């Protein structure tokens, strides 16, 4: 398994090199890689089903987290791997011809190969994190492929939409998987699904629900289905491969993988099956009104994925068997039809169905391939489509599900006719380009896959034994006797099949009445999830613009207010609640010096606040500074007082010099704003004062300052303790501060001299 993954990954990354060497022939050669992988997988499957078992490989990765690179191969993953590599080989080959002469082909094939490796990683992975990594890589490669024609806005938007929808789902999936892994005590899927105590865990249903969202987005279930029809902006090979036969089935794969565990949850029968049925119905009805080949096919893909989801939701062995056959049948015929749509578009330049007709003479091989696939999609015997439908009816769960299935079957007949038959029969119509047969590289795929739809059904017992039974057993998690028979006799299922067919023919003949009948449903889709997505995106866009305009207003004052409020609400709040206020009992009585000093300070503050002249305000600030210096003098810190005096003098002089050049002072702020500022400032001042006061009584540990006075002379040989602290005990601080001063000087010079923009090079 790891060999195959590495092979495809390396092949993908080296694609540009190959292209440089081989040019447009590269794709046909690169297709050998998936073909080879297919053969290897067939070999592994052959050796495995003898033991009915499962291959496990595990490499150490991050042991501390119990992350291992573990992979498992059983019937289910083998079926998917065969589809991925088998169809993949044809699609790569096809792409070479599709992009013949187009330089973007190299990029396309490269991403396609990388997608193939990622998708194989998804179905091989046993460790949930490994699964998730590959899951996301499929989303991302899908993004690149949908946006391949990136110069078109529609393609870019569709790519973004697919990425966001599946990406969002992926995050739900991640959360769900992590919770499940934590609850189950293991990251290995193989051990989680056999964990019988897990369903009793209190978070079990929550985990399953989250995983379901992931699976539903990936597999385009209602209401997340809308991205898939839009994804038809991708080149046709990508649509055939990712958006019909493989990637969109990843969700179905995940559901099937978790089936043994999931059926224990009420969500399985009450959510999975109904959502599946709803999707089955919606997709089919929506398909009816479409006129573009690929969109038409896309809606039936949505519908088919719904059918598979519904069957898995039923949870019975019969349903599991039906799901596997349906899946196989759908992958084969839908990939063919998409490839055919690509051929038609490529050779005739037409995408609109009503402009096509009579192509069978021009492109006989393509017509044959399309016909084979269409027969299977219609569910005619002897095809896989027929088998799948019979089994679907056999697995039935009541009238509602059954009638939805029949109705969907009717639309499938119609769509198969419109896409696989209609363009090739009837009168020839003139198209944009004169059509001609595509090269074999392009029709080989539809031909083979369409042929397989019949071959695998004719040899139903072999298919049953080697493909369906191992896969269904893996879904069920237990060995069950499963046989596949083409002919069941004249039973109820066959009657229903005939009814479906009859209805389908009626739908083809009576297009107008039927479309009138269902047009309200299609019209309702205008207000459907696609519109929600657009509204949501727009809402986020506008909401964030609004929010940011409020937060990042551009006013420095608002920013400072925010910080001040933050401090008051956190530190201030805790201070009020948790710090016992010491009271004033321990203070000595107020003497005359204090009184004079404090009154002086208050007067100066009032002056600074109320003055209308800058000079007066600066002078008042200076008085405040000197007042504080006087406090230092009175309480025994003469060195501090000296420093304070010097700084205060300097500040006042500098401010006076600077403000001299400023325009006249003007009151700019409104009265309410000033009241608010005053309140905030007062609150901060009170808080700071109270806090400092409380801290001076709240000593928890004695200060270490004794060390400095004891050692300053004895060990550091200095008599001035403060000096010794500055230049010896804490010299590193001083070094830092000197650096700050140097940088400030440098900055002042540079700011004054260097003016880029205004007067260029004013530095000299």
């Amino acid at each position, binding site marked *: 398994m790891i060999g195959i993954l590495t092979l495809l990954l390396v092949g993908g990354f080296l694609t540009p090199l190959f292209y440089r060497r081989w040019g447009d022939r590269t794709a046909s050669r690169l297709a050998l890689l998936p073909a080879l992988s297919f053969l290897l997988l067939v070999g592994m499957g052959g050796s495995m089903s003898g033991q009915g078992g499962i291959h496990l490989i595990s490499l150490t990765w991050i042991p501390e987290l119990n992350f291992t690179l573990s992979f498992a191969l059983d019937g289910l993953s083998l079926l998917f791997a065969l589809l991925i590599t088998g169809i993949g080989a044809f699609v790569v080959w096809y792409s070479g011809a599709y992009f013949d002469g187009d330089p973007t082909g190299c990029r396309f094939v490269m991403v396609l190969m990388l997608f193939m490796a990622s998708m194989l990683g998804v179905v091989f992975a046993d460790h949930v994190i490994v699964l998730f990594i590959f899951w996301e890589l499929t989303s991302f490669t899908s993004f690149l492929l949908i946006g391949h024609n990136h110069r078109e806005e529609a393609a870019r938007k569709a790519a973004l939409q697919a990425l*966001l929808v599946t990406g969002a789902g992926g995050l739900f999936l991640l959360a769900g998987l992590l919770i499940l892994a934590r609850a189950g005590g293991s990251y290995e899927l193989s051990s989680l699904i056999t964990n019988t105590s897990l369903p009793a865990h209190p978070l079990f249903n929550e985990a399953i629900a989250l995983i379901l969202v992931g699976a539903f987005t990936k597999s385009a279930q209602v209401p997340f289905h809308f991205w898939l029809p839009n994804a038809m902006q991708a080149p046709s090979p990508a649509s055939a491969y990712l958006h019909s036969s493989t990637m969109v089935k990843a969700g179905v794969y995940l559901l099937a993988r978790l089936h043994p565990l999931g059926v224990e949850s009420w969500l399985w029968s009450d959510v999975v099956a109904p959502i599946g049925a709803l999707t089955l119905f919606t997709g089919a009805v929506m398909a009816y009104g479409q006129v573009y080949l690929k969109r038409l096919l896309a809606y039936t893909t949505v519908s088919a994925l719904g059918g598979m989801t519904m069957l898995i939701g039923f949870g019975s062995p019969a349903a599991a068997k039906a799901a596997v056959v349906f899946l196989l049948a759908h992958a084969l015929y839908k990939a063919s039809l998409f490839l055919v749509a690509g051929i038609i578009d490529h050779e005739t330049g037409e995408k609109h169905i009503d402009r096509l007709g009579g192509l069978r003479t021009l492109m006989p091989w393509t017509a044959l391939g399309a016909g084979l696939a269409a027969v299977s999609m219609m569910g005619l015997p002897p095809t896989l489509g027929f088998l799948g439908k019979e089994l679907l009816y056999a697995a039935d769960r009541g009238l509602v599900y059954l009638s939805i299935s029949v109705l969907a079957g009717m639309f499938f007949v119609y769509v198969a006719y419109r896409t696989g038959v209609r363009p090739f029969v009837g009168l020839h119509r003139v198209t944009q380009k004169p059509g001609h047969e595509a090269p074999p590289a392009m029709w080989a795929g539809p031909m083979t896959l369409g042929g397989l739809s019949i071959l695998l059904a004719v040899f139903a017992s072999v298919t049953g034994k080697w493909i369906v039974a191992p896969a269904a057993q893996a879904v069920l998690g237990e060995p069950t006797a499963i046989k596949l028979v083409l002919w069941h006799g004249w039973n109820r299922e066959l009657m229903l099949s005939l009814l479906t067919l009859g209805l389908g023919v009626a739908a083809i003949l009576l297009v107008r009445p039927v479309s009138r009948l269902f047009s309200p449903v299609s019209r309702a889709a205008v207000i459907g999830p696609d519109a929600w997505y657009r509204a949501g995106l727009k809402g986020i866009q506008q909401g964030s613009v609004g929010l*940011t305009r409020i937060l990042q207003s551009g006013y420095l004052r608002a920013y400072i207010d925010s910080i001040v409020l*933050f*401090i008051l609400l956190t*530190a201030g709040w805790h201070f009020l609640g*948790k710090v016992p206020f010491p009271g004033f009992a321990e203070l000595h009585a107020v003497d005359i010096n204090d009184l004079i000093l404090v009154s002086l300070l208050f007067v100066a503050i009032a002056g600074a606040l109320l003055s209308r002249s800058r000079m007066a305000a600066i002078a008042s600030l200076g008085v405040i500074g000197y007042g504080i210096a006087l406090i230092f003098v009175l309480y025994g810190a003469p060195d501090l007082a000296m420093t304070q005096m010097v700084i205060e003098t300097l500040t006042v002089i500098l401010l006076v010099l600077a403000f001299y050049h400023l325009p006249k002072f003007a009151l700019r702020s409104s009265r309410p704003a000033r009241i608010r500022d005053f309140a905030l400032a007062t609150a901060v001042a009170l808080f700071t004062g109270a806090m400092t006061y409380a801290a001076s009584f709240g000593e928890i540990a004695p200060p270490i300052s004794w060390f400095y006075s004891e050692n300053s002379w004895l060990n550091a040989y200095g008599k001035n303790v403060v000096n010794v602290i500055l230049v010896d005990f804490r010299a590193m601080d001083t070094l830092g501060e000197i650096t*700050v001063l140097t940088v400030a000087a440098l900055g002042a010079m540079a700011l004054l001299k260097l003016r880029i923009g205004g007067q260029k090079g004013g530095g000299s």
Partner: protein
Amino acid sequence: MNGLLIAPVLLPLLLGILSLLLWHHVRAQRVIAVAGTGLLTLLSLRLLIGIYRHGIQVVHLGNWEAPFGISLAADLLGAIMVVLASITGFAIALYSVGANERQRECFGYYPLVHILIMGVNGAFLTGDIFNLYVWFEVMLMSSFVLLALGGEKPQIEGGVKYMALNFFSSVIFLTAVGLLYGVMGTLNLADLAVKVRGTESTGMLVVIGCLFLASFGIKAAIFPLFFWLPASYHTPPPAVSGLFAGLLTKVGVYAMIRLFTLIFTPDLVHLHGLILGLAALTMVTGVLGAAAQFEFRRILSFHIVSQIGYMILGLGLFTPLALAGSIFYLMHHIIVKTNLFLIAGIVHYRFGTGELKSLGGLYKTAPWLSLLFLIPALSLAGIPPLSGFFAKLLLVMAAVDIHAWGMIATALGVSLLTLYSMTKIWNEAFWKDAPTPPPPARTDQSTILMMIPVILLATITVVIGFGAGPVFRLALAAANQLMNPSDYIHAVLGVSP
């Protein structure tokens, strides 16, 4: 080992002085910058390896024993941060030489860069709270001058806000240090850690903790204190904003992690719930802010805010895994974010604008740059298997462990919006056709030399992703050191708490 421990501080100082002396010799300054930061990177890697092997390293400066002198103490977190700072410095030096902003280079650009790195490294290595303040000042002053250097009008506008708000942060920091010394009587971090562990009366410590939270919160640009960042980061030359984007806020995050694991532990101050709430709000407001922008560097600036939320999310959750997640996130983010800013810079140099509506067609005109953009952009959005995926995964796993559902939802939702933002840039600047008339290309700038650091950082991003195992082991070891501060205390004080 002692020399190695002090080298991340002294070497940039020497480089700075040397560059100052060679004021008129820009070419010599360039050589010194590249060679010096390269040497610094090697030395700091050597330091990290030494600490990984032999444990926490301590130097008592001037041989004054702790807690009386200033101690430098490097544990794994500190050493990791120094390595990241050095790598960023090296990348920026190369890029600056390539960007060829001649006028700025003549006015002390390189000395300022060296001094800034000195301040950053000093902050990562110091074991003393006041010394940390000093390094913050060194950073603040040199970053302000770098920000304003050139004196273009938007630079000055952004610079004033930057200076005012960060200066406010310094005032709060200093107040908090003063109060802390007032009640605890010491400045040494390890000594503080010992003394707070013996105390009953914690009310005042909670208040001081809040003050530190506010001060570092401004530096780290968390909600609701981040405003200076989006106001200023898009204004200076790209090399400068790359340097700032990578390092400055992360020093705030580092300081927060250091103090709130070593001193203000959850059982002492109960502030970690508040930190969690702030983390969530930071993630959301940041990413929404980015959604509202349509200019390359403005988008990226708001994403810094958003990502900071993830980093302190791990601190708020406070488990070894969560802290390891935060540290992993720091490693991932510094590399990725610097790189994105550098790429935005290259786009700006080449096309003369960063406005998405005037850009386009880069996929065609600059295919390699497109690829190089995708790597950090997808990593930032958390696409596996790139570095950002594992960073987010670890945090989400840690949140699952303690059932912090709201945090999981926020973290994952924000990562989706990040993906949206990155895709927006991709679609508009790279995929879309160039608007007509195309923006005037400025091809006179040498861009080859600027691509080297971009390639280097992109490579590191990929390596962190694919080597997630060893990187996580390192982050977990660092987190375990933080969760068990006794090793740190023992290394600094020589006694067990």
